[in-house]
């Protein structure tokens, strides 16, 4: 009976530990990631369970000086977008994008200048008029080609690539966010038990 009691106590403890594990390690996490799409920066936020962080405050700071550049709020899908501030573009600032959901959940994402600036020269043109780029390019394609047209086409392609690649960027960002997986944990425990087996084998007395 005593043994039965011991086993049940141990079992209860184990269950308690396993129930606590994910909740402890994942609490207080809100994920945020952002990437450049042409002249705007697009971002998504979610809690660790996958729930969108609706109507939460987004603060954009200069990463070096922590000077706030702008704020905005997320929409119903936890997404946000804002124009790249002129100040950031000029100073080539790395942007720290912070989400604060107001209940002690806070996440941040560092968007480096190189990521949203692209190659400097073409970008300074694109700031002037981003939306009409495609139209202008199409129009100019019917006329005779020149170097500026090439420039435009390049930008159109880049813009399209940005759009197509953004989900992939997002996937990469998400995969970077992952902590140790269950396989890692169980694998580690397995290794430890296996090593103990080897040591036990070495230490065992073959004669009996």
């Amino acid at each position, binding site marked *: 009976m005593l043994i039965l009691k011991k086993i049940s106590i141990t079992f209860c403890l184990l269950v308690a530990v396993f129930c606590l*594990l994910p909740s402890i390690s994942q*609490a207080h996490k809100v994920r945020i990631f952002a990437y450049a799409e042409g002249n705007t920066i697009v971002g998504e936020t979610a809690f660790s369970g996958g729930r969108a962080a609706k109507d939460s405050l987004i603060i954009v700071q200069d990463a070096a000086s922590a000077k706030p550049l702008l704020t905005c709020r997320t929409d119903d899908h936890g997404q946000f977008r804002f124009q790249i501030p002129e100040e950031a573009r000029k100073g080539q600032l790395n942007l720290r994008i912070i989400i604060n959901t107001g209940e002690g959940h806070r996440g941040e*994402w560092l968007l480096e200048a190189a990521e949203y600036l692209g190659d400097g020269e073409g970008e300074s043109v694109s700031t002037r008029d981003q939306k009409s780029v495609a139209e202008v390019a199409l129009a100019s394609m019917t006329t005779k080609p020149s170097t500026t047209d090439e420039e435009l086409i390049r930008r159109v392609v880049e813009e399209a690539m940005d759009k197509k690649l953004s989900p992939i960027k997002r996937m990469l960002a998400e995969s970077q966010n992952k902590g140790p997986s269950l396989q*890692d944990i169980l694998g*580690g425990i397995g290794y430890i038990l296996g090593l103990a087996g080897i040591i036990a084998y070495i230490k065992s*007395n073959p004669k009996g």
Partner: protein
Amino acid sequence: MNEKYFPPQIIRIEISQHKVVYMHISEGILSVPILISGGALTAAGTAIGLKKLDYDRIMGVAILAATFFVASLIHVPLGPGSVHLVLNGLLGVVLGWASFPAILTALLLQAIFFQYGGIVVLGVNTFNMAVPALLCFYLVRPWLARPKFRPLAGFVGGFLSVFLSSLLMALALALSDSGFLATAKIVVAAHLPVMIIEGFITMFTVSFLARVKPEILQLESRS
């Protein structure tokens, strides 16, 4: 890698989520003499630990090594960031010298699977966590035998080992770099909640073991 709240060399930052203050020193920070001496001391400690390891206790050591291995995944929220459990006090109190091989194994696997710490700094990291464990073993042992002092002894073991580990970590960083006091303050302050939590965990675990399976603690055999 996004943050510079704490001195950047100590802290591994979990990308974009929140800061986690690890008890593990990362690669490429410590100077070569520290790495070598840490490695040598750990090798010696592990040799002693393995030699003292009785055949009957191997599985117990393995279970505690596995506990230590998993404990670092349990994050304790602290302000904007968090710190993780260490549990070296529990290992020390229960295992004694066998904490060395147990912690070495667990840290090696953490380095491989979770990228905590690293292979080159394995010696120093093991030393930092196993030596306080061992000290607590010798300090707390005499009290453990007496049921009245057992909870207090458990708490002290859990608390002190994390505290000493933080100090050793700061010392290792200071010997390679500079400013022991500043680093020590940050590391110790960050781990204060962990010390208290681990004090209680060790206290309850030791009391529980003493009641349910006293032979694990070897209270009778070791006078």
